[in-house]
């Protein structure tokens, strides 16, 4: 299978979808699903292939190269599969909205450019696809006008800063080595001084950290996630943000190389060690901010920032377990965050766009499948044993503890405990508690929304109970970076310092649950009562909505709120404001009167003459 053909289908499919939309909505939707599914199949066929091909030779005198290996296959598979599910989910959600042709064009375009990034074999095509991705994402984030435009602008400004940093790096590499082919660079870079390598890593890290929302460069993410159309949130949070992770892997382990990247700097100030600490900060602070959120999508957005920290910590520690944990967590996080955003999307679809947690509640009886999806999603997010999130977090914790980074491990673990608070808040406020009267007639989510949710729920359990299947692939990636192979079995990891055996846990949980269930069956059958029929120690409970759902963790809020303002965002906004007033001041020079301009010219000439006479140059 040729990569060139793959990209042509991906990009061409997007444009054809747009054109078909002018004829009929049905055909357009069918074609969009067909294209995204055929991409999944085509990429699945690439499994195990290693190869490069030049697709175009004379872009500014440089060849554009595509390449495939296990790393690209892994990411491409995730991108295409989640992209296809998001397209299927969009079908009902986007029905009867305006500019849907444009929406599908951009959605498929984002997917196509992500595939382009992943299959790029040289940095110039990487950069081109990177920019295409950033711009099409910007257009999608701003899709719902109003505050969405501001969110989109914030995103694109930060994104451009990142790309400019990357461009500096790319140009400097070209000036030094006269090639941008990744494979060649990886060989040539061995001769570089450590100062130059550090410069390269930092300049590329700026770009990738912005995309991956690493603190303190995360500020675009919460607003962008909250304002983007919900079906696109899947793509945005699942893989697009994690292109930053792909970038980090690329620059640290493919181009610079593991041994060199892990030895830059000295003592506590090693590059990868500082990166890991930034990751740890990214875990803790956003987790606590997420607890404070009352908007379902903002809560998930902050949680996504926090989970990004785990991936960074994982790959920055620089051990085979950490690397595998980081890569595996990227996949796992993508699965459950897409699922959770879909659940929010289903709720929004049925309630007319409601996403304020305080005005929802009691949906468990109305939308049971969505509830099961959410339950599995938050289980994965917390990392409850037998879900996929547990395995990747286990790998990261284990390596942090055994390599002697207990404080990093502490940050990672405390992030998980904070995670339980907001996860429970999320599921409780939407599905448990009292059902508001106006939602008495809410229907189940339509099938085209349930299907992706069911597939993703299944994936969470499948990767949680049989983690060996993806871990084998990840292990191949790790060994290709020069790490020692892990002892992967189908149910986990075998080693002397602590093994993981998910099958044992699964069997034990199953048997014990059956016993507990039988115990409940011994007694007389419980009488089913209405939800309002509760014991309140003599006090009357208001029928529609009791107030304890609002401000659920009130004592905690009072304690932590003063410390958790987004100071970084405030600082950036202040800086932007300052730049704006500076530019406003400069604008005053252009008065629009010809006389003034003539005066400027005369003054300038006078200055030149003065200089000439004074110093007789």
């Amino acid at each position, binding site marked *: 299978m040729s990569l060139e053909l793959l990209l042509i289908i991906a990009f061409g499919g997007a444009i054809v979808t747009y054109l078909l939309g002018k004829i009929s909505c049905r055909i357009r939707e069918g074609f969009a699903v067909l294209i995204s599914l055929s991409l999944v199949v085509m990429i699945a066929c690439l499994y195990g292939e290693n190869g490069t091909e030049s697709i175009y030779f004379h872009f500014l005198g440089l060849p554009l190269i595509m390449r495939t290996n296990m790393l690209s296959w892994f990411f491409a598979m995730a991108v295409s599969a989640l992209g296809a599910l998001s397209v299927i989910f969009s079908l009902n959600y986007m029905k009867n909205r305006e500019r849907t042709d444009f929406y599908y064009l951009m959605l498929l375009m984002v997917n196509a450019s992500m595939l382009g990034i992943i299959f790029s074999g040289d940095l110039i095509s990487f950069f081109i696809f990177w920019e295409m991705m950033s711009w099409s994402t910007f257009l999608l984030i701003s899709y719902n006008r109003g505050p969405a435009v501001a969110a989109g602008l914030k995103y694109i400004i930060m994104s451009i800063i990142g790309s400019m940093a990357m461009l500096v790096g790319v140009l400097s590499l070209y000036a030094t080595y006269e090639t941008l082919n990744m494979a060649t660079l990886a060989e040539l870079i061995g001769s570089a001084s450590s100062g130059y390598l550090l410069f390269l890593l930092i300049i590329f890290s700026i770009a990738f950290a912005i995309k991956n929302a690493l603190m303190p460069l995360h500020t675009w993410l919460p607003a962008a996630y909250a304002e983007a159309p919900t079906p696109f949130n899947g793509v945005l949070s699942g893989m697009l943000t994690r292109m930053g992770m792909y970038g980090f892997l690329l620059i640290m382990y493919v181009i610079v190389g593991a041994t060199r990247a892990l030895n830059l700097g000295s003592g506590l100030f090693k590059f990868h060690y500082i990166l890991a600490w930034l990751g740890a900060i990214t875990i803790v602070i956003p987790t606590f901010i997420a607890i404070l959120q009352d908007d379902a999508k903002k809560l998930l957005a902050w949680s996504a920032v926090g989970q990004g920290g785990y991936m960074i910590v994982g790959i920055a520690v620089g051990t085979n377990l950490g690397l595998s944990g980081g890569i595996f967590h990227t996949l796992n996080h993508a699965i459950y965050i897409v699922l959770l955003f879909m659940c929010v999307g289903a709720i929004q679809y049925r309630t007319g766009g409601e996403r304020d947690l305080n005005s929802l509640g009691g949906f468990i009886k109305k939308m049971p499948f969505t509830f099961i999806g959410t339950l599995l999603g938050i289980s994965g997010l917390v990392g409850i044993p037998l879900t996929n999130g547990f395995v990747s977090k286990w790998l990261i914790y284990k390596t942090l503890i055994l390599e002697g980074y207990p404080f990093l491990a502490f940050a990672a673990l405390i992030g998980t405990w904070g995670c339980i608070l907001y996860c429970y808040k999320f599921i*409780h406020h939407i599905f448990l508690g009292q059902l508001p009267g106006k939602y008495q007639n809410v229907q189940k989510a339509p099938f085209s929304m349930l299907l992706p949710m069911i597939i993703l729920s299944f994936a969470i359990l499948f990767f949680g109970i049989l983690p060996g299947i993806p871990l084998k692939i990840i292990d191949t990636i790790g060994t290709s970076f020069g790490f020692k192979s892990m002892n992967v079995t189908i149910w986990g990891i075998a080693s002397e310092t602590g093994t993981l055996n998910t099958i044992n*846990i699964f069997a034990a949980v199953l048997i014990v*649950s059956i016993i507990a269930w039988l115990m409940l069956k011994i*007694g007389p059958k419980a009488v089913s009562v209405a939800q309002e029929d509760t014991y*309140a120690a003599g006090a009357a*409970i208001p029928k529609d909505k009791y107030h304890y759902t609002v401000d659920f963790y009130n004592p905690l809020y009072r304690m932590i709120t003063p410390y958790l303002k987004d100071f970084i965002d405030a600082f950036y906004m202040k800086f932007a404001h300052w730049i704006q007033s500076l530019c406003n001041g400069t604008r005053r020079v252009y008065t629009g009167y010809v006389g003034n301009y003539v005066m400027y010219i005369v003054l300038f000439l006078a200055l030149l003459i003065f200089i000439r006479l004074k110093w007789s140059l």
Partner: protein
Amino acid sequence: MQMIEMILSPLLALIIGIFFLGLSRKIMARIQWRYGPPITQPVIDVIRLFSQKSVSHGKLFNLGIIFSLAGSLVLVLFLPLAQICPLSGSGGMLVILYMMLLAPLGIALSGGESANPNTSIGISRKFILALGYEVPLLLILLALMTHYKTISIVHIVSIQQNTGWAFVSLPLLLSGIAYVLILPAILGIRPFEVVQASQEISSGPMAEYGGPFLALATIQHALSLFIGIALFVNLFLGGAGNLLIFFLKMLVVFVLVLFVNAALPRLRIEQAVKYLWRWPTLLAFIGMIIVLIVRR
């Protein structure tokens, strides 16, 4: 052999846990100059509850309590009881840490479906309290795992049996003291009895349970009591060579904790969290730094 251990260890945990419940009522009564119920009272209660009527608020209401009890029972399989540890090689301390989540989460999901405000307050308090004591607890456990260079609890116990208790070994002394300070919070007894505070929020998460549900909740409570103390005995008092010594160690710890329970009034949740994030956390933090210095 492993199959027998699989059955034996939850049974033992259940018996000891229920016995502790009875014992606590008796000791509390004697401290307050009352006669108190017979020590078998919890057993009688559980049997009686299984024959009584109950109400259910939905599927999750039933499943949550099963989930919670299952979580506690599985957790017992990961804990070494003297030499018995059926699931020693399946994930170690990290799985135990996560399994400790399941019980409160199950109760929370179950209680959440009944729209009872008392339940809601109780659950909210439980999670805040858990966040409160997990901060020092995680620091303590990480210090322990870093010091012994293993994530397997069986290894931690066996190392202590060769080299002496962690509680009296110098690098881990501060961590041990911090653990003692947070033990009442982990067990959910006074001064940290904010979750079930029966006089305030009518037993919080338990408010809606009756009949078999309450029986399961009581069993779960007994198990969590057992787990909290057994974890401390394993991690800091060196486990034990045989069951009798293990049981005696647990009994001593439990009685001491009961005295604290009898002597102190209940804190408010903010006060509890402030306390947990101050002194125990400080001690655990210093303990961790000491461990790191010793390791270098």
